[in-house]
């Protein structure tokens, strides 16, 4: 469980939970509620090198497709295979069972430059 209070957030609504050089990535509770019914997730292949801000996964609702961007640079180390069996985990458990992938971080300063939980809450309020 990557509790929201301990995560960092990108403006594109991904969360990152970093520990050492490993960062787990998912989408925020706000994002899953906006997307509603997630019916398919396309994940990057492990080993793929990604740059911060690069589109590397796709979330599909009944109505539309949404790009998911790597919040930090590095190499994709693991992906959540459970999402292909049950994409609704993204809705049910966005910060836990609905995680997307993990990245072996190449630049540790990137994660700390993202918003913390309270900044993200402010960001959401300002956007509405």
């Amino acid at each position, binding site marked *: 469980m990557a509790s929201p209070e301990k995560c960092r957030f990108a403006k594109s609504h991904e969360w990152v939970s970093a520990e050492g050089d490993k960062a787990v990535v998912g989408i925020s509770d706000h994002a899953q509620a906006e997307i*509603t*019914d997630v*019916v*398919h997730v*396309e994940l990057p292949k492990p080993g793929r090198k990604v740059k911060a801000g690069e589109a590397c996964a*796709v979330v*599909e*609702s*009944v*109505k539309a*497709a949404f790009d998911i961007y790597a919040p930090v640079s590095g190499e994709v180390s693991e992906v959540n295979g459970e999402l*292909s069996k049950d994409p609704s985990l993204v809705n049910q458990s966005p910060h836990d069972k609905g995680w997307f992938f993990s990245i072996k971080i190449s630049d540790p300063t990137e994660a700390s430059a993202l918003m913390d939980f309270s900044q993200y809450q402010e960001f959401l309020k300002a956007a509405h």
Partner: protein
Amino acid sequence: MTATTELRRTPFYGIHKAMGARLVDFHGWELPIQFTSILKEHQAVRSRCGVFDVSHMGQILVEGKQALEFLQKINTNDIAKAAPGKAVYSHMLNEKGGVVDDVIVGCYGPGRYLVVVNAGTADKDFRWYQRHAAAFDVRVENQSDLLCMLAIQGPTAVPVVEAITPGSAPLPRFGVLEIELFGQRAFVQRTGYTGEDGFEIIAPNEIAPRLWEEVVSHGRSYGLAPCGLGARDTLRLEAGLLLYGQDIDDEHTPFEANYGWVVKLEKGDFVGKGALERQKREGLKRRLTGVALSESGVPRAGAIVRAGETVLGSLVSATFSPTLQKGIGVGYLDRPELRPGEMISVEIHGRRVAAEVAAVPFYRREA
């Protein structure tokens, strides 16, 4: 939704807004795409029932001694089958055989018809009617701005509608009934756009709020859910029903849309008949064909369909099917002879996803 265009609102707009529905611009109308979730609303209609605000649809009243002759002239289907109390689904064509609109013509008495037309085409249709009506003893009146329309659809729709409009339950499929509702003249039709049993109630705007209230309160014990356009689209696509402007338009004929059953060439002359007869003689070059993904993924309108390396066409409507739990779609493919089961691919996010030709409708309710 853009702030610069003035969107039209139905008499139910305030109710939708207060319920927290997510509203979108649909052909210039501000309508709910979903109240809670497309999947939940879809499921409610397949297993219980749902109510849809379809007031954006147009209604044209056709009356007069030659109303039938006039309607026969501009429709592909045999409107004589719409005896009083009955309705028929039909296409209206241009001279090239392209579809001007798909409509439901209900007969509410001798020489008295209510034609339900699409939102995006109501004005175009009315001009089309006026142009052709000149040659007949007939009065054509656009009532679209005066009337609201609710669709109550699903296996438990009957008791809900019967409670509000007594006498509806015995209506056969495509039966219609004129009634008095809260002191006003209203129309009930056993029609719909979901592939389930159900009704559409057409009533004056003034009684819209009360009508909604009654539907929701009578629907409560039957599991009724307010539904948006999102579920309406997945329900109709599963049921193989056409969306005008997407699946059919002025450039495609009913034969190409695989809707030859709405064309009655033997009934007499009608606009577009010559073009259809010619197409029948020469054979089809393309046909609206069903596609179902064999792998997971969600196809969208515009996706390219291939057989091997050969491009066959692209999808005009596509979605994730909540009932079948897989990607489905329809597209004009230039191999009219394709049969269900043949292997094809659909391009999604630059990747070719395995699929097969599928029978349409994708879903058929148990009788």
